């Protein structure tokens, strides 16, 4: 042991080469990922090209889908996609924001705390953790809603939702049938069951992003409101919701994007009928369900037509998703600035 061996040393030329190679590999992968996304869009667009030149913009405004005569148009599917998504969004937003408030305001934790306070356990070293644990558990439960595969929701919708809502729907049709929304009977699959299941599927997105937006409202705003003597709900409606509104809205737009592209639940529940109806109980169709139902048996000619429909769906979801992502990002930047 004449001299101490230093751990620190300059990299050898082999190590330098390995470093350069690894960096280049990472760069290559990044470029490949970017190219992949471009390739995906191009692949769909190129496959759609024959139909694009054959049918042109009339494809978007016509209502016939007749493979025997070779006439195709997708207005009913565009209508069905937007109609089911918007209705699901209304329901999902109502319940999603309510759940977000419930989570962000710690309603459950407070309730458990009051329960513990009665027998005097609220300062107990073990029991006192229960309110926070209950909050965590509830948040995980809402996230669980998002983890269940959509085909399982479809199965559940077929065998639970449809039989459950059918009597109500047919009662509404019998007694209030003059209202356009109730103007048909619910025979089985239809708009309403699809909307119900769809709204359950998008609720976790709205709740998660909405809760995040509400929690990141600076606490000094909340304190100031309480200090002025406002009740909890005066604070929520007057201060919290307006401050968090941009973030919540971004979440709603992202959920809209999800609803537009959702396939399985709709393919199983919406009824696949090529018609434009206002009735909630009549079958309809959506772009995604159209693709799912027709692709397995499509001939070369129909493939081009379906690719055109896919391109339309891609354009719609892309616009909605980019808008939603920008809104969430901007809202986050704003609340960070406020703190």
């Amino acid at each position, binding site marked *: 042991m004449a001299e101490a061996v230093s751990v620190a040393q300059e990299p050898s030329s082999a190590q330098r080469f390995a470093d350069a190679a690894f960096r280049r590999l990472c760069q290559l992968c990044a470029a490949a990922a970017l190219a992949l*996304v471009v390739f995906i869009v191009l692949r769909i667009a190129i496959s759609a090209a024959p139909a694009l030149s054959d049918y042109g913009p009339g494809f978007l405004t016509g209502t016939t889908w007749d493979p025997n005569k070779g006439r195709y148009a997708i207005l009913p599917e565009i209508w069905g996609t937007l109609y089911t998504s918007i209705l699901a969004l209304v329901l999902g937003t109502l319940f999603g924001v309510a759940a977000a408030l419930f989570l962000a305001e710690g309603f459950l934790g407070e309730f458990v705390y009051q329960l513990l306070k009665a027998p005097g356990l609220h300062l107990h070293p073990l029991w006192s953790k229960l309110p926070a644990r209950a909050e965590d558990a509830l948040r995980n439960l809402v996230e*669980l809603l998002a983890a269940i595969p959509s085909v399982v929701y479809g199965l559940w919708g077929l065998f639970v939702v449809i039989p459950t809502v059918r009597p109500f729907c047919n009662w509404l049709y019998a007694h209030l049938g003059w209202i356009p929304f109730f103007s048909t009977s619910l025979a089985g699959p239809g708009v309403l069951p699809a909307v119900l299941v769809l709204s359950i599927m998008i609720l976790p997105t709205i709740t998660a992003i909405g809760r995040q937006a509400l929690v990141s409202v600076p606490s000094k705003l909340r304190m100031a409101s309480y200090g002025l003597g406002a009740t909890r709900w005066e604070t929520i409606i007057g201060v919290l919701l307006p401050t968090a509104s941009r973030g919540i809205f971004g979440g709603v737009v992202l959920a809209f994007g999800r609803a537009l592209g959702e396939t399985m639940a709709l393919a199983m529940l919406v009824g696949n009928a090529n018609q434009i109806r206002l009735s909630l109980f009549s079958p309809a169709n959506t772009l995604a369900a159209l693709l799912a139902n027709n692709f397995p048996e499509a001939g070369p000619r129909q493939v081009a037509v379906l690719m055109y429909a896919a391109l339309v769906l891609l354009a719609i979801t892309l616009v909605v998703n980019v808008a939603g992502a920008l809104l969430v990002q901007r809202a986050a930047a704003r609340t960070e600035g406020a703190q």
Partner: protein
Amino acid sequence: MTTLPTSVSGPLADVDFAELEKSLQRPRTLINAALDVVVTAMTVLALIPLFSVVWMLAVRGGKKLSLAVLTQLPPAPLEAGGGFGNALLGTLVIVGLAALWTVPFGILNAVYLAQAKPEDRLATGVRFATKVLTGFPSILAGVFAYGAVVLLTGGFSALAGAVAISILMLPVVVLTAEDAIRAVPARMKEAAAGMGATEAQTVWMVLLPTALPGILTGVMLAVARAAGETAPLIFTALFSNYWLSSHGQIHLMQPTASLAVLIYNFAGMPFDNQIELAWAAALVLVLIVLALNIAGQALSRRLPE
């Protein structure tokens, strides 16, 4: 309970203390309490579907679940018994195949993103592309794989299914891995650089081992999402009533069954046996997805602060 003073002298003499008492007879407090109830009811209502789904899966799926169901081939219409062994295997093969190239590719992308300088245009582009893929409708992944693989190879196959699935896995892997690598404390990176480690050595010996739990969380979540996806498989892997392998060979270029597509196909059949099998398959699928999710969350809790 504190009782309010009935008479006060001095500067508080003008205050009407009865006015300050919280009472449900006042509209403000009444509305407050009513909205508390409304929001609680709505949250409970929003969770009812979850319990209903779990209950139905346990009752209808659990009734049918047995070892035979997990190992036998799907029955013909009106035939009794049978199972979905080939679909279970098919799901594992398709998801495994997709993970095989998505995980390394995604992690290398994440390394690039995490190490990139803020002004790196390529990194900005990749990040945007990944965000676009996050909101990409799953059916369009299937449409792409149909155009890129099925039309090219001339048939439905497990490979085409895996390509479609991998597009949906990629953004989850990249975004979570990037976060995990960025969360490694800067002092560890600086210590490595200070000792003369090259960037590649820092990544391999410091960043990736430290970020491993976070990266694995992302992989688990991606695999969980992939296992439950149906839409991209319907017209890429299609379905099959037979085993993936025969005579000791695995056929990756043949139509392949998967649990998700089996549920979709069997749910629409007018035969009780098939519908019962669909419920049992749904139970198995949900158990797989939940196990992966819980494992992923357990890993992420051990992340370094």
